[in-house]
């Protein structure tokens, strides 16, 4: 294997897996069309990454909640760091090799595993080498601190985007100025110029995309709820990887129409629907299959994920593209409770979700690497218990299956479903 083949090996494997699923979905007349579009979007994203250097393109690796709209507008190929580690875990199974390579670098187990895994993967040379690293403090210390090691491992330059913690006119201005500085950095390093018209088009689509997210959220309120458990991850990924891109819009429009049709026909994602769950944080990637299976066995469906799928009401203005990109950072669902001071609004939103979505119970996935989210476990539990929603907390790791066995987690979930039954 040549060095460049080795460098792309994990990405090639993700692409192969996505293509197989796409073909299987295409061949299955019952499979929703949105699934085909989703997996095609994924394989296209990673194919662009795989071929980037051969096509003379510039690759920018970036952390989660990074405004990759700017990269698309500059014809720079994005590489989402955390999602790429997730995808490796989701499609390629246990990631012992990359996690132990992260440990070799001196990264202790308390560091969020997607970041340890990513650093490990770069040090093993199994991911394409980025030409620049972009990272920010939206949303945690792990994102804020991960960039410099990636720069060092890949011998590439980097830019840190400093996100203000609260919201005020001065802080909004600061963020816009940070975006301007980043564009200058990218223009200088990549030799590509910002295409402002293209950015405006992306912002216009992004505005529509947030509308689609809200419409989908509304449709999920139906009883029975039409959206399957595995869909949650798709909703996140589509914005993480392709914000404001035509393929994201096509997927979301198709999904919305499919859900609307199901609601019209009174069909649910599981039949019969017995329990409606609120999901707090993210189930481990390697358990997505289990969640789907349990959904059907027990008639359980996740109807709302307040930390991840509740977009704030606001509009983006294509005539002010940079300000809009900055505003989007304030609209993302994660901003409400995962970043910025935890306000009453976030707690009220939990209560609203519980009521509007007719939630029977909540599962809090306490990812041990994610400190700031776990710090709200008790508070959220207190708030939800007040409106009579029981909460199950499960300690886990998003990408490392050795932390908690599937049987153990299955047992806890089954017990919880029995408790819901008894109520």
């Amino acid at each position, binding site marked *: 294997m040549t060095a460049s083949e080795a460098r792309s090996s994990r990405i090639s494997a993700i692409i192969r897996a996505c293509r197989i699923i796409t073909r299987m979905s295409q061949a299955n007349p019952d499979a929703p069309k949105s699934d085909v579009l989703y997996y095609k979007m994924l394989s296209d994203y990673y194919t662009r990454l795989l071929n980037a250097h051969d096509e003379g393109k510039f690759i920018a690796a970036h952390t989660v909640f990074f405004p990759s709209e700017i990269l698309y507008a500059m014809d720079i190929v994005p590489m989402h760091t955390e999602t790429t580690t997730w995808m490796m875990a989701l499609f390629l199974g246990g990631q012992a090799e990359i996690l132990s390579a992260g440990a070799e670098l001196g990264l202790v187990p308390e560091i969020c595993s997607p970041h340890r895994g990513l650093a490990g993967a770069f040090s093993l040379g199994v991911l394409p080498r980025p030409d620049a690293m972009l990272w920010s403090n939206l949303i945690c*210390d792990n994102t804020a601190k*991960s960039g410099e090691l990636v720069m*060092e491992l890949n011998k590439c330059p980097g830019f840190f985007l400093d996100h203000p913690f609260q919201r005020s006119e*001065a802080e909004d201005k600061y963020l816009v100025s940070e975006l301007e500085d980043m564009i200058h950095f990218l223009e200088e390093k990549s030799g590509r110029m910002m295409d402002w018209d293209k950015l405006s088009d992306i912002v216009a689509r992004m505005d529509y995309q947030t509308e689609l997210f809200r419409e989908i959220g509304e449709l999920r309120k139906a009883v029975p709820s039409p959206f399957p458990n595995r869909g949650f991850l798709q909703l996140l990924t589509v914005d993480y990887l392709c914000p404001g891109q035509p393929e994201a819009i096509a997927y979301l429009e198709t999904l919305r129409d499919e859900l609307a049709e199901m609601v019209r026909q009174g069909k649910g994602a599981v039949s019969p629907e017995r329990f409606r769950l609120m999901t707090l944080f993210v189930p481990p990637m390697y358990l997505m299959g289990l969640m789907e299976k349990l959904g059907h066995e027990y008639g359980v469906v996740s109807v709302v994920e307040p930390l991840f799928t509740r977009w704030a009401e606001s509009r983006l203005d294509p005539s002010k593209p940079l300000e809009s990109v900055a505003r989007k950072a304030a609209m993302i669902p994660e901003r409400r409770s995962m970043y910025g001071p*935890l306000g009453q609004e976030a707690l009220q939103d939990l209560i609203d979700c519980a009521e509007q979505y007719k939630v029977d119970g909540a599962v809090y996935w*306490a990812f041990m690497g994610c*400190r*700031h989210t776990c*710090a709200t476990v*008790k508070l959220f539990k207190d708030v939800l218990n007040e409106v009579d929603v029981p909460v199950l907390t499960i300690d886990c790791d998003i990408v490392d299956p050795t932390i908690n066995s599937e049987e153990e987690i299955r047992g806890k979930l089954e017990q919880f479903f029995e408790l819901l039954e008894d109520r």
Partner: protein
Amino acid sequence: MVIKDKPSTSVPLPTLERFRQVNYAFPKTEQILEHQRQGGKVFGWLCTYVPEEIMHAAGILPVRVTGYSQEMELEDGNAYMYINNCSFSRSCLQMGLRGEYQFLDGMVAGSTCDGARRLFDLWQYYIKTPFAHMLTIPRKFTEKAHDLYYQQVVQFQEHLEEFLGQQIADEQLRHSIEVFNRARALLRQLYELRKADAPPISGAETMEVLNASFRMPKELFNQWLEKLLAELGRTGNRHQGRARLMVVGSVMNNPEFVKSIEAQGGLMVADELCTSTRYWSDPVVLEEGQSPVAAISRRYLNNFPCARMVPSDERFNRILNLVKDFKVDGVISQIIRYCVPYAHDLPLLRDRLKEVGVPVLALDVEYGTSGSGQIQTRVQAFLEMLEARKR
């Protein structure tokens, strides 16, 4: 270089004993109670990016919120904050939940790291103080970041004025700058003594002085520190050791931990902690025509950086300078479990220190540890390795 031919001497220092008494009474020290008896307000602050001068100028006694001064079972902290937040924040929270910070009239924090920001969030919901304020702290040192931080400090001042119903005059701020700069200058003098081959004060003793500085009015602290410096000059105490060490990493203010290293022959001559050098190292420089708030905000953002700041080389370079100035043979990195900012920096810092031939002993600790058991064994081995390198 470490001199071994002359033995260590250590005669008692009366003023050090007074500082110790302050720490024994923690968290409700006699000096805090006295300030309250005089009708003064007491505010807690959480991290070194919170400008103390602003509170001081308003007549408030700013005290640093820290956790238990020993390793403890943190049942409440664990229950409310989950076990995967650093034990420093859990320890502070537990003290708050148990009413040990009930005397505070206000709590001020900065958006420094996940542990600190969540501590502030939970404090507001479960403990509550009459006044609470969070400052956005940029992570960069650029001019734009300085502008933003300046506005944050102004907002903080305005919020405080509104709460107190009184204005804070520039004159009062200038006075506070003088008081705090005096403390910084005296602490620098104290640290200068530690550059000697056989310093007159140990690392553990220095930590006791610093701890007291967080828990008493600075005016009184300055008087006492002046006395202590005079005593140190008179007594001729000298501390010897097998190797000159520096401790870096997460927040740490338990002198017992340093004492346990010194008891094994390590000579702790320098430190890079937010409870030590990073707290006092840079003065506020008030330029001609500059407003005191502008000078204060510039100092706090430009101060010896915490691991949260970008680029990390700013911090690493300062550490390398300390290593050189204090003739450090080996560095002990102590990182509290789940302290992500420092944990992420460690591989890079280790490389930088390796380039200048300084070995690192990396310890995973819990806040308040006294450094017993396995830590002692590892320190022992580290000291032996450092000695062997010198032979």
